[in-house]
């Protein structure tokens, strides 16, 4: 579960406010809860303790809210003195005025909120609408108004398609969020305990996202066999070591520095990726960087055999076609049909490169 405010970190502070008999629940992460509390205190002019930054969060919240009650009473006494300038201010002042000063603090107890989540869902959605700008989930180039206008102009089926697309997008996003939540929980549940907790706190969603995103990407690289396509193994196909984003061998993650220190390459692919600096080094050490000895013989032999087989098939086909034409000219249709069958058979033989 992620923080309602920043939607990045895992929520581990649960605040329940009971306002006129209605309870509102907030699921926040620690930094957001702290920030929110301090912001509210500033708005209300509540005195903030000097060591607020170092205070445990629950203690801070309780103290601030307790003081806000006093401030609220004071505000009620000389109403208007604070001068609500903006809507935002008004909203929070009203909200705070309505606060019936019952605060419950919960920590890492998500079970208790299973029901209440539904209850406050309307308000949640409203909040989301307000906050949509500050979120960096999906950025549309068009504003919501423009989008609406565009939707109205569309044909009904187009509109449906767009809405389906948006739904699909939402699903993808939801899936991604699920992964992140899971990841955050894993971090919390890890046996390292406190250390892991703080690590999870430090780790921003950006890190998790990049980790999640990086994985399939890394797999992609790993599965790429630089020697796989022998045909396209020209100089252009050879990736320059400078162009690899990390300067590492994609297969064994050896860096050039490591290779130079160690004096050993990590895997055959290293030679491809670090071809340029390696050639320079070899040029210096052995005064040559071009192999001039034995080449694998089996591969060459296989190639030759393959070409030979192909040539034989082609010449046989040409011969059969000639005979077919001659037979057709001479009106020997029985012979011609036999030849046609033969041609079909020869054509269907695959010259298998793997055949012995």
């Amino acid at each position, binding site marked *: 579960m992620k923080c309602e405010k920043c939607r990045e970190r895992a929520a581990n502070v649960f605040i329940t406010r009971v306002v006129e008999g209605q309870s509102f629940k907030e699921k926040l992460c620690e930094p957001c809860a702290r920030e929110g509390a301090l912001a509210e205190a500033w708005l209300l002019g509540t005195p903030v303790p000097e060591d607020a930054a170092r205070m445990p969060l629950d203690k801070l919240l309780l103290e601030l809210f307790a003081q806000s009650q006093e401030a609220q009473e004071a505000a009620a006494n000389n109403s208007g003195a604070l001068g609500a300038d903006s809507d935002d201010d008004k909203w929070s002042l009203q909200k705070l005025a309505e606060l019936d000063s019952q605060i419950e603090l919960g920590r890492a107890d998500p079970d208790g909120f299973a029901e209440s989540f539904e209850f406050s869902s309307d308000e949640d959605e409203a909040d989301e609408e307000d906050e949509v700008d500050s979120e960096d989930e999906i950025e549309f180039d068009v504003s919501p108004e423009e989008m609406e206008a565009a939707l109205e102009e569309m044909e009904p089926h187009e509109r449906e398609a767009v809405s389906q697309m948006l739904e699909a997008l939402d699903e993808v996003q939801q899936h991604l969020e699920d992964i992140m939540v899971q990841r955050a929980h894993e971090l919390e549940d890890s046996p390292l305990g406190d250390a892991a907790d703080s690590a999870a706190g430090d780790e921003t969603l950006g890190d998790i996202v990049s980790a999640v995103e990086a994985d399939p990407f890394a797999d992609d690289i790993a599965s790429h*066999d630089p*020697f796989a396509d022998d045909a396209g*193994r020209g100089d252009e196909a050879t990736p320059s070591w400078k162009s690899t984003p990390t300067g590492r061998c994609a*297969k*064994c993650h*050896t860096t050039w520095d490591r290779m130079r220190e*160690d*004096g*050993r*390459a*990590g*895997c*055959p692919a290293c*030679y*491809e990726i670090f*071809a340029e600096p*390696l*050639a320079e*080094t*070899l040029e210096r*050490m*052995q*005064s*040559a*960087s*071009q*192999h*001039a*000895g*034995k*080449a*694998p*013989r*089996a*591969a060459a*032999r*296989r190639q030759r055999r393959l070409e030979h087989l192909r040539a034989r098939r082609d010449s046989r086909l040409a011969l059969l076609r000639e005979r077919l034409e001659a037979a057709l000219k001479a009106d020997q249709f029985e012979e011609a049909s036999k030849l046609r069958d033969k041609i079909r058979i020869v054509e269907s033989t695959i010259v298998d490169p*793997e055949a012995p």
Partner: protein
Amino acid sequence: MHPPLLLSAFDRAARWMKRGGRENDIVLSSRVRLARNLRRYPFPHKASPAELASVRHRAFAALRATAEAPGGMAAAQFLLFEDFSQWERQSLIDRHLSSREHVQDELGRGLAATPDAALCVQANEEDHLRLQSLLPGLQLDAAFALVDKLDDVLEGYFDGRAAFAYSDRFGYLTACPTNAGTGLRASVMLHLPGLEVAGRMDRARRWAEGRGLLLRGTFGEGSKVWGHLHQLSNAASMGVGETDVLVDVEKAARELCDMERAARVGLPEKQAIEARDRIGRAFGTLRYARRAGCREATDCLSLLRLGHEMNWAKGLTRQRFNELMVWIRPAYLQVLHGRALSSDERDILRADLLRPHLNRMRLDPAFFDAPGPENGASDKPATT
């Protein structure tokens, strides 16, 4: 655990210890090694245990499948290093079948070798496969022909399965880029006591370096010299063909042999007392000692071999010298006795092993033609 490895799996005298090859008074053995890697696996130092085991399995399967093919490795012994103790594996180094790096880790390492040790394949040494052939005397051409054929056979097997790592630009790809290219190392074991006694070893080493060759210790890279045995090998593997390398090394080996012979001819006169003193002491030590350290025994044997070549000492063959040189190695001694031995025990057993052979040895009258003080006045002790 196997019964004592070397006694059961391998011939008592390896092929390289026996007679054969050219220049075999000085050249003990010729070794040609080809480094090959499977393209789909990371190099052994980066590979996981599972990958190492897989590479070894593939290599052994390939060798078994091609054993009957012309050039294949027939009647090979397959050794998984996990089955053997540390000192058993070390005895493979003494037989020049393996290297220090290879036997250090047992996991996923292995060795396939013919019983006479003329042809062997090291699995997961520095590279996935190292094909090596070891023949007596100077016959790099024959040794190369052996590994070359085995390489062709293996390549034919691996082609289409997990082909060898090869690129048109860098040739055969190896873990250490200095081996990339041909992956070939041709080396020759030279017995050079004459040059050492005459104090000309440094000059010889510089001379070899000037020709782009390396003159190194007995067990290859970074090892010490034992019993005046030096390894001459090629340095470059990139930009030169296999034949050129073999010809270069062979030519240099011949020239070094000539230098050594020249030094030996000069010994009885120029270093009359020094040479007789050293050889006589070596004889006395091995003949009567009850405890002999490995280094001491090796050096003494080497000097006696020199005496044998100069016709000063008789009674032992070259093959016997070669065998003794290996048998007295610490790890080999333990394998011979089938148990771990303390260093003191080893020294006693080593002396016991050598004494009967030395009993058969006689010093030639020429050795006793000791120059008088008037003759030996010009003799200057060599600085070695």
